[in-house]
């Protein structure tokens, strides 16, 4: 069965600093991978997704993620964090199961941005 691990529950960075959020997955075949962001009191919004092709994926709000098969990782990065990036971030892996795309989410990483 597929699974996703986000080892960091909480991360604090200074505004303007770079950011990397870690995500490791477990899946036998080539996975579909996603990063979602959730602001307080809101639903989840897709940042970016990977299915095939270029392993470096660009997303919205200046985020990017790199798929590394050898490390089973899909880490999210941003070169310069803004205060508005404070939110919770979820990595997810998808697979086809029973005729639909089953998506398994990690437990999330909460990002705090300090001035």
């Amino acid at each position, binding site marked *: 069965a597929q699974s*996703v691990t986000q080892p960091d529950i909480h991360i604090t960075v200074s505004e303007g600093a770079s950011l990397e959020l870690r995500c490791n997955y477990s899946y036998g075949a080539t996975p579909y991978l996603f990063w979602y962001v959730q602001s307080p009191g809101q639903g*989840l919004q897709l940042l970016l997704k990977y299915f095939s092709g270029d392993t470096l994926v660009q997303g919205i709000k200046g985020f990017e993620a790199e798929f590394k098969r050898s490390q089973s990782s899909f880490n999210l990065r941003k070169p310069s964090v803004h205060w508005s990036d404070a939110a919770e971030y979820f990595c997810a892996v*998808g697979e086809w199961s029973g005729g*639909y*795309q089953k998506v398994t989410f990690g437990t*999330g990483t909460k990002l705090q941005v300090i001035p």
Partner: protein
Amino acid sequence: DAGITQSPRYKITETGRQVTLMCHQTWSHSYMFWYRQDLGHGLRLIYYSAAADITDKGEVPDGYVVSRSKTENFPLTLESATRSQTSVYFCASSEAPGSGNTIYFGEGSWLTVV
């Protein structure tokens, strides 16, 4: 562009009562989902629907009932609410099967069972 609308957004109910969470989407997406979000568990799939009148269990279906008589609506019913069902519930939708279709989420329904 209304997207996905959930109601009620906030609900407090008593143990043993029946509660229905409503979900309406305006995109005519084939697939709809109900997730619950709990601290330390991330999001877990309760039920999903591939089309009108087609539903199936997800990871944590016990205690929940769904129906989908129309493509745009996917209500979730807690037949006899328990404290363990206190959670944030998210309805979501996606297009017909394709490689990695994006799942779009509603804003959530906060349910407290006392």
